[in-house]
């Protein structure tokens, strides 16, 4: 490592400093935001009954965790999120693959997928509850509906725009359709698939929370609903805060796995 030139070492140093500065500024913004919020709350500038405050949120978090409530609801939400994420990923990629391999099927179903994708799924909420009952199934189904069509569309589009030259090359060796897919199309699309999964996880979270708001007796979405009904704004904001953390961790995990 020490055979880098002086200029290169300087360059690396500069990059390091840059990253450090970005981090510091980020932290500064969040700390500023939280301190101002806390300050305004303490001085009575804002009404904590309506707007809560960071210290109250921490207290609420603490209370929820020692009663075990937090874990219970968090578990449910994470469970539903995981299931719907895997289901929509597998389903989406499988259907995209079928579309890629059979143009006829793709042509037939393309308009249906487009319509289903742009349909606002919340509108289906009441129907889903009637058909599947006010249960976990409904919530997972809701989440699946939100993410699966966009997965199909994105992944198929990626498959379909694979570099033609690569395909001609491998076909010239006599590759079958399946071999073209396995050795060229799928590996060419790994990055595209990963970025689709990143979008997916947030889509799924939206679906789950929406579902929980509508039907459930458990989960973070339910806590938010409950909090707003009894006018416990502290609880509502605490839950939103937890959702923020979940999103960040999910995003971080997918980034880690994709490396």
């Amino acid at each position, binding site marked *: 490592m020490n055979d880098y030139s002086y200029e290169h070492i300087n360059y690396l140093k500069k990059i390091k400093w840059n990253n450090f500065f970005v981090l510091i500024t980020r932290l500064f913004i969040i700390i500023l935001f939280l301190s101002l919020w806390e300050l305004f709350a303490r001085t009575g500038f804002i009404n904590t009954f309506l707007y809560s405050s960071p210290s109250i949120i921490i207290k609420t978090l603490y209370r929820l965790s020692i009663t075990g409530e937090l874990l219970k609801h968090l578990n449910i939400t994470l469970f539903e999120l995981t299931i719907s994420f895997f289901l929509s990923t597998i389903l989406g990629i499988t259907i995209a693959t079928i579309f890629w391999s059979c143009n006829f099927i793709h042509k037939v179903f393309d308009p249906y997928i487009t319509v289903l994708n742009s349909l606002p799924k919340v509108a289906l909420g009441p129907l889903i509850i009637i058909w599947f009952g006010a249960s976990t199934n409904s919530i997972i189904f809701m989440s699946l509906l939100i993410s699966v069509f966009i997965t199909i569309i994105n992944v198929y589009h990626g498959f379909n725009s694979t*570099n033609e*030259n*690569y395909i*001609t*090359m*491998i*076909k*010239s*060796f*006599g*590759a079958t359709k399946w*071999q073209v897919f396995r*050795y*060229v199309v799928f*590996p*060419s699309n*790994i990055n595209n698939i990963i970025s689709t999964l990143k979008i997916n996880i947030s889509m799924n979270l939206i679906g789950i929370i929406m579902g929980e708001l509508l039907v459930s007796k458990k989960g973070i979405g339910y806590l938010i609903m409950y909090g707003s009904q009894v006018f416990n704004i502290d609880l509502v904001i605490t839950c939103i805060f937890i959702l923020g953390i979940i999103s960040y961790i999910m995003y971080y995990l997918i980034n880690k796995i994709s490396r």
Partner: protein
Amino acid sequence: MKKILDVSKLKKIYHTNKEEIFALKDINFDVFQGEFISIVGPSGCGKSTILSILCNLIDKSSGNISLYNGNKIAYMLQNDSLLPFMNVLDNCLIGLKIKGPIKNSDKEYVINLLKKYGLADFIYKYPDSLSGGMRQRCALIRTLAIKPDILLLDEAMSALDYQSRLKIGEDIYKIIKNEKKTAIMVTHDIGEAISMSDRVIVLSKRPAIVKNIYDIKFENLSTPINNRKDICFSKYFDTIWRDLNE
């Protein structure tokens, strides 16, 4: 010399939504073992089409292609098409992988080719670390890996600048002669065709027929770059040039 390929009355019409494109009208030629054949012709006359038909990428409309006693054909495309997500070795093995599990002897054969032709340090590197010329050699080794008898080269060097073209032309020529392969090369560069080939096939403009086939004989047969200095070179050049432009 043994005849290994015979193309007769080859005809190709492309059908698209908008129109019919009459690409090849009547193509006839034969190929003998160990020959280096070049095909030249105006742009868009159907040169690539001939190669695509020969290696079964597309169907012919009519005509006859006889490949004698189980000779194998491999196609080297215009662009190198090295897969960016595989290392050099895996790229070179892809044609074999298509045929089934890779035998150790095949793998060794490919590694030896890579070593022999200046890619020893890059066997486990990814294609983006190769220079233009190295990529071209790698693509050639990928086609050699399946041990074909006939190599089809489509403008194999057209992506490179003039200097590198001469150099790679030299390399590819030597590799093909070394490995005792038969080659059919498509090019729009008359000089390249003459300096490398035993015979040059001149096509008419679309729909293509074979206008002329020239036997190339040099006073002192050498490598492509030296052949360009041969006294016969400019004679062939002028004739083919006139042939193409009339």
